[in-house]
């Protein structure tokens, strides 16, 4: 059986990649993907603990997170399309004004 620490290590690596991505990327779609990466990194650790403790609560959390992530993806992509339409760019540093 794969030990718990492997899952946790994988989760930590994925989370860190997500964080670093959020910090260094400028493309708004990349940012969005990095955020998803962070969410799913957390999901992995939740599942791993759920299995370790033989408790479904963790898996329930994961479902909620996935549902929220799906909703967020819909809203987020809509915002990205609206952003591109108004500014013709996906660079977040150029979108530092609320009003043009």
């Amino acid at each position, binding site marked *: 059986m794969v030990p718990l620490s492997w899952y946790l290590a994988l989760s930590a690596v994925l989370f860190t990649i997500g*964080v670093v991505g*959020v*910090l260094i990327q400028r493309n708004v779609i990349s940012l969005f993907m990095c955020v998803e990466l962070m969410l799913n990194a957390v999901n992995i650790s939740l599942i791993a603990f759920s299995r370790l403790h033989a408790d479904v609560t963790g898996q329930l959390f994961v479902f909620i997170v996935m549902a929220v992530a799906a909703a967020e993806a819909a809203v987020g992509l809509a915002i990205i399309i609206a952003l591109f339409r108004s500014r013709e760019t996906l660079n977040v*540093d150029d979108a*530092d004004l609320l009003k043009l």
Partner: protein
Amino acid sequence: MLLKWIVFAPLIGAIINGLFGRLFLARLGQRATEKLVGFIACASVGVSAALAFRVFLDLLRLPEGQRRIPEHLFTWLKVGSFQADFAYLLDPLSGVYILFITGVGLLIHIYAAGYMHGDPGYYRFFSYLNLFMFMMLTLVLADNLLLLFVGWEGVGLCSYLLIGYYIKWDVAGSAAKKAFVMNRIGDFGFMIATFLVFTTFGTISFVAKTINGQEVQSFLAQAASSPAVAAGTFTAIALLFFVGATGKSAQIPLFTWLPDAMAGPTPVSALIHAATMVTAGVYLVARCSPVYLKSPTAMAVVAVIGAATAIFAATIGIAQNDIKKVLAYSTVSQLGYMFLACGVGAFVAGIFHVMTHAFFKALLFLGSGSVIHGMNNEQDMRRMGGLKKYMQITYSTMFVGWLAISGFPLMAGFFSKDEILWRTWSTEALPHNWGKALWVVGAITAVITAVYMTRLMVMTFWGRERFTDTRDSHHAGAGHASGGHGDAHGHHGRPHESGWLMTVPLIILAILSIFGGYVGVPAALSMGRPNYFERFLKESVAQSEPATATHAGAPPAAVMAQSESHGATPAPESHGAGATAGATAGATAQTAHEGGHDVVTERLFTAISSALALLGLAFGLVFFKRNTLWRAPKLLEDKYRVDEFYDATVVGPVETLSRDGLWKVVDVKIIDGLVNGVARLFAALAGALRYTQTGFARNYAAVILLGAIIVIGYFIVSIFGIRINI
């Protein structure tokens, strides 16, 4: 239940005139307003005077030894064992005071109604004057030190308002300020003394009170019956009260405000700065006489300061050319006499002089006001002369005042001054021979008094008419910068007699100045009949017994305690030593020790004071008739340069310290520096912190990450760190 109306009647007048005077002026015009305002003011004081007379008769009807009428309005302050009532006390001392305050006050109000004619601030003037009456009556009728202090401060305030009455004239403004500041210095002593009285005796009342179910004797009775003589506390209390008295009554070293106070209208000078307010200091000392008698040191200080002030001010008075300034210094000098009397233990003689002085000095001031009025606001005596012809009534009344203040035999001032001088000579309250030395000072002052008053009369009423000499700088010395009322009359050039509103009070005061002294004729001069005034006042004023000291010390305590507890009449004390056969039945203690050789000596001294007065008058007449415009030594004309001395030693340094120290260093550098420094600190902080607000979302995300790492790191170290090792 009449006492409160004596006090409050003038207050009602003050409120009506103060609040509605302006309205009257707008609706009725100047002439009708003057009539209405003058009537309200005089009527309110008239009511007060009538009631004062009435309650005084009530007081006389009470049996001797129980003459006290208390009136409790409400308990004002009650904190722990401290209690101050809003209550009045009428006893012989306050009785005498309210009689002459309301009496002289009424006359001066009537006079002022004529004097202030044409002044646009008529209602303001009378409002202040009535308020003053209210405060003065509160002062003398108060039954405890705190209420007395209310009146004390109140008269100071009214004095300030009235000295600075001519608001457009800056000299009046500075004089008012000076009076106020000097009185503050004295008040400091008064307050500390009051605190000391409370901590020492546990009460500040002049009458016995029930506090928290316990009968507490008045602090005066406690002091009188206290066995400890010359305890430091008694000296401290007495001297601190005297500091207050020097401020209010213009004694050395705080006397310089009174001559400057002459910038106020003349009726004010007569009422406040001669007859009533300035004698409040004497009242305070006489009221606290049991405390003073326990402290020979304090008595000596009071006597010496009094005598020094008397001669000091008299010598200045001889060199002044402003008619009101002469009278002002004369007032300071006479107040010195009163304190001399208190200091040698003759408190009753001091009060007697207060009363006669109120009559003749009010008369002299009002007379001088009439002269100033008649001369169209000329105050410089060098430009007067020969006024006798033009102002018959003023001249004759001033003539009476002149004789009275000089101590001409059988006038009011003669009896009181003679009494003071005799008591000074024969005092036993002071160390050996001090009395004799002080008597010499007092006697010289008596001569000088006669001389400078003669000079005033000669320069003003007799001799050549000098007012026609020069027409230039006519208003130079005049006080009425606010467009003098003299102009309203249209009598330019020639002196003229004043109207009846002004002359009638003069006549009444002149009569009082002649006969006012007869209430206190000493036993030695009245065929053995006792001194009524002294016997009457003995109940509320402790006396140190003169001459025959068969019972030294004891009686004041006994009298105070008995009258306090409404006990029986003080038991007649027996005296073997030479009681005169002429002593009547009622005249026990007093007459008895005045018997024997003392009567002879006292009569001799009466003869000496008469001679002194006549000497002064004769010298003055001969000298000043010949050298009317005699120039006094520069030092005297400059008032010994006391003002300059104070300027150099106190005012100057305080000013320099305030400007260069408090303003330029403390205010500008420290206080402003503190405020500006705080502002600058936050500006710098904000300047540093604004660099953290970059506006880039990723920077904020990085900070959030950093925070998360720190929190997680903390947990790892504190919790997981241990588990991992296991």
